[in-house]
């Protein structure tokens, strides 16, 4: 991200509407992450000033909640479910295979910036275990040998 910070109009408006509501920080961080896919430091600094909360509190919140990211994920973030139902049905193996295929571990981003891998705990499709979610698209009853095909599909997107 460039050094001079230019927030989109939508994001600015969102911050404006929430600015004076008690308990706004988490909702605003969600909106920030929706825009940037993570919480950039410049934005955190901006929020600190704009909302008049210490930067330490913002980082306290960001680091407490697993959902918020401090590092930019890949263009396509692959979430592999390791909730109980998926774990029992081989979610862990999917994760390993994916790490092998992409050559990065959980939390890492591939060199070309295209993919990142994340382990998540239940996306609420346990009936279809094991499950992975890529850019919001759910892949249920997923088998290891399907992964290369899926990766190829997203590579071109």
């Amino acid at each position, binding site marked *: 991200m460039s050094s001079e910070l230019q927030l989109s109009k939508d994001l600015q408006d969102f911050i404006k509407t929430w600015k004076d509501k*008690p*308990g*706004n*920080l*988490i*909702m605003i*961080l*969600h909106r920030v992450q929706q825009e940037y896919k993570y919480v950039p430091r410049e934005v955190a600094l901006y929020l600190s000033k704009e909302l008049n909360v210490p930067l330490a509190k913002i980082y*306290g*919140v960001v680091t*407490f*909640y*697993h*959902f*918020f990211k401090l590092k930019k994920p890949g263009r396509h973030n692959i979430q592999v479910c*390791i*909730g*109980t*139902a*998926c*774990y*029992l*049905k081989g979610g862990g193996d999917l994760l390993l295979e994916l790490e092998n295929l992409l050559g990065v571990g959980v939390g890492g981003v591939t060199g070309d910036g295209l993919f990142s891998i994340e382990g*998540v*705990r*239940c*996306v*609420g*499709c*346990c*009936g*279809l*275990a094991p*499950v992975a979610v890529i850019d*919001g*698209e*759910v*892949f*249920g009853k997923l088998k290891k040998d399907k992964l290369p095909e899926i990766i190829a599909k997203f590579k071109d997107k």
Partner: protein
Amino acid sequence: MAKATVADLQKIAQEQSGVKSAYQKVVLVCGGTGCESSKSDLIYQNLRQGAQDAGLTNVQVIKTGCFGFCEKGPIVKVQPDESFYVEVKPEDAAEIVAEHLVKGQEVARLLYDKNKKPGTKADDIDFYKKQVRVVLRNCGIIDPENIHEYIARDGYQALAKVLFELTPEQVIEELKKSGLRGRGGAGFPTWRKWDFSKAAPGAQKYIVCNADEGDPGAYMDRSTLEGDPHSVLEAMTIAGRTIGANRGFIYIRAEYPLAIHRLEIAIKQSRELGLLGKGILGSNFDFDIELRLGAGAFVCGEETALLASIEGSRGMPKPRPPFPAVKGLWGQPTVINNVETYANIAAIILKGGEWFAGMGTATSKGTKVFALTGKVKNSGLIEVPMGTTLREIIFDIGGGISSGKKFKAAQSGGPSGGVIAEEFLDTPIDYENLAKIGSIMGSGGLIVMDEDDCMVDVAKFYLEFTVDESCGKCSPCRIGGKQILGLLEKITKGQGALEDIEKIKKIGKAMQRASLCALGGTAANPVISTLKYFEQEYLEHINAKKCRAGKCKDLLAFSIIAEKCKGCGLCLRKCPAGAISGEKLKPHVIAEKKCIKCGACLASCKFGAIVRK
């Protein structure tokens, strides 16, 4: 539309029934998350387009919430014919239109029951036969994005009754009669919570809905909100009226985008009709609801942590008392209930507490929704009367074990619960019985395990989860959890010692006693209960360095029986680690040092020459 009155509600309901009966056939397409992930939206589009192209003005196609039978999704149901189509593909839409909707011939190959006789109902199939739907009464029946459909099924009638016919005391009395207890896990009587908050002094009281659903492997609340969001909005408004609160919050996981979307639509439609906002239904009662998103912290499901999170802080639990009912959100009296608890309320108000109390056991009334998953054939969302046995759930509804292997255990209550061993399959499920056998009701996750699942590994899995999710505020949870996990890791690696079992029990007890919140207080449950019923498996890991389920990789060894090996070379090609060598037509060997214990060779050999120890 202008603000509605009670008479308007009736009018909408009548009009809506009129709209419905004008259609000869209604096609219900599952729009739950499970089915959406298998393209049910495209099926829906194709069916609509197909019906339109065929000029079928007397057919309605709508998208509903989850039918429960997610395993067999995507589901399409055609009424009034009671045709229950499963595993439908987008390209099947044309055939359904041409054969069924135009010619009136069911498409047999897509029916769940291929030999369906005329006159049988979808509810007659084994998966549904023993189910009773109170919470899920509208799921798979109405279009959750159309408030009129909810109103046509007595929606908001309970609220009207509470506003114009009942006093708050009478509402609480009805809840007391019903025996409804909290469905979020602890089973606290709902009427008492409401009564405390009502009595507590406070200028601004709040109603909160806990939709954080942190149990990994459970999705009851998600499906309820996706399939019938108004049932929760209506109940929260009733709660507001009863205790004198006019603001409500729904705290929902950010991981549930579809549920959030449906709630947003529902709230908007309710406001438009004046079912939320000022002077609801022409009364002098104001109430409104806002959403707050969770951010992936399990501990935020705990009520005091959840309230801290709504306030915008780190979600750390606080000591109770004071309880939220007295001192909750921003220090004000707050009723906080689970999604499923709320989803029962309107039905209780309309049908009466006695009706509700007519279902269930002596101490646990009504029904319970379970997310039945794991090694079971019919995985999905089910609702059964309290007191149903695990055997009925797993074998009658669930169709038995999917792998054809033997049942080993079921797990209820997620990371706070325990395993239920085979000897308890016939125990009627209720809060007390589950506690007695070392598990808990929990929120409704029910995970079935078979012989391929290692009980030590399962315990380790849950401990990894709770260690990861511990907020770190109190030391019994922060340190104790790590210690138990370390011991379990030792055992699964074959480095365990007998005294480790005693150590685990001791630390577990300390965590139970001294943790600040129930996350730490119950974190040892999975290990304590597996120890109780499957101690033998622990001992095998420790003494014989053996994992009978074959899950603990460090304890496995693969080898080739020379006499049986034909030297076909298949395993050699399959091994991803290059650990197998051998000449063609001669017995092959596995180099133990290189072996990564993936089991690919075992699966590939057609001659049964490879064994796992």
